[in-house]
């Protein structure tokens, strides 16, 4: 992907978990880059590996996880950073907005205290200076600064999500990873939160990695779109292109499984089969059992991610000339 100015570059990211049942490859060979001011939407069903990617980017995976590959930020490989470098990189370079803000906030500390924590961990400012900036931050996300001494359980769901966003923006990071920021909220609040994020992005100029299983939400707001299936990238490209002419059968199925308020109420497309339960080594394309356009031979070799149109990549044998030539 030709970057305008690349903020984060991921090459060949693999994440494995050691479990009692064997080694589980949650993420395999994922590569993408995010430019300044861009929004990369990462879409996939539960278990596709998207949250694992997010956690791997700031290295908050559990101890049983092993990452390989290269995640480059500001010239340094995040996966090889020392703990001192890592602490500087976290929150100042890349911050994280987690799913379900109620669980992401410490229940025994006030909102103010949690914001001050984040600020004073990175900047040598006095408590007073940090407290002063709390008010500005809360106003920025649309919360009344008078509620700064509130505890998380005293706020509504929407307000909590705004608090988490405020904490994430406290140090003006270059990239904000948003992991399902609106899943736990009702539709009306969802829209206002997403509008808020757009407004802040225009104002502060950060990039966003937007992770969701809701394709509609992401397609609306993202500049680029990446679809994940079974831990690998299925398709990645400019959002408008991917939505207008999806290449991968999985993307097609995802797009046709949603309804619009206007337009015909046709029959919704159905995706047969279950999410992948792959035991044993890779057996070709992971989507093969559920693919409507599958052909014999597609389940032998894992499809590589190839550029089908400029900037638009897909990992599917249907577009691989070498396979079609067989």
């Amino acid at each position, binding site marked *: 992907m030709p970057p305008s100015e690349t903020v984060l570059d991921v090459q060949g990211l693999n994440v494995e978990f050691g479990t009692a049942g064997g080694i589980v490859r949650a993420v395999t060979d994922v590569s993408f880059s995010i430019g300044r001011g861009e929004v990369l939407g990462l879409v996939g069903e539960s278990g596709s590996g998207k949250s694992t990617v997010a956690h791997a980017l700031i290295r908050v995976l559990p101890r049983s996880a092993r990452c390989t590959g290269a995640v480059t930020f500001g010239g340094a490989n995040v996966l090889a950073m020392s703990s001192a470098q890592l602490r500087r990189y976290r929150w100042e370079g890349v*911050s994280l907005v987690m799913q379900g803000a109620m669980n*992401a*906030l410490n229940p025994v500390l006030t909102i103010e205290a949690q914001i001050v924590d*984040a600020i004073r961990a990175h900047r040598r400012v006095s408590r007073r200076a940090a407290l002063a900036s709390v008010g500005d931050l809360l106003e920025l996300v649309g919360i009344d600064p008078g509620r700064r001494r509130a505890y998380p359980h005293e706020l509504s769901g929407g307000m909590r999500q705004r608090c988490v966003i405020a904490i994430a923006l406290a140090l003006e990071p270059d990239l904000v990873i948003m992991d399902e920021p609106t899943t736990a909220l009702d539709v009306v609040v969802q829209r206002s939160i997403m509008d808020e994020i757009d407004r802040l992005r225009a104002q502060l100029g950060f990039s966003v990695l937007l992770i969701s299983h809701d394709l509609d939400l992401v397609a609306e707001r993202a500049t680029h779109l990446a679809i994940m299936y079974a831990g690998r990238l299925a398709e990645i490209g400019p959002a408008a292109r991917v939505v207008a002419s999806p290449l991968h059968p999985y993307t097609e199925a995802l797009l046709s499984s949603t309804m619009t308020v206007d337009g015909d109420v046709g029959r919704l497309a159905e995706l047969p089969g279950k999410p992948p339960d792959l035991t044993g080594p890779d057996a070709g394309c992971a989507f093969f059992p559920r693919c409507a356009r599958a052909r014999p031979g597609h389940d032998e070799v894992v499809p590589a991610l190839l550029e089908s149109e400029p900037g638009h990549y897909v990992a599917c044998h249907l577009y691989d000339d070498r396979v079609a030539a067989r």
Partner: protein
Amino acid sequence: MIVHAVLPVATIVAVSVGNWLIVMRSSMISVLSEDYITMATAKGLSPLRIALNYGARNALLPVTTSAGIAVGFIVSGALLTEVVFSYSGVGYLLYTAVEGLDYPLIQGLLLIITVGVLGANLLVDLAYVLLDPRVRRP
């Protein structure tokens, strides 16, 4: 008297600390798998700060609730320890009272012990309110 208390105190502490350790460990393990710990790590806070302000402060809550019961055990343990060390305390007095079947003394001592335990329980409950903002009423 204080000097003579060193050995009995050390005995009771040595026996009781194990239980607290186990309960706190179990509570801490539960707390450390919560999302706000992941968020605190992602925020780049120092491990010490995470362990104390985010981990221990939340892990202390269930431990505190069992602190009230522990006071009762301490009083019971003190009785045995006092008898073994012949330390003149309430427990030893109760023991001699029971041996001599001194009913008024037994009644009085049981009353004092129970009031003491009740008072300690009250203090523990108040401490819990201080620790956990979720139980406070605005």
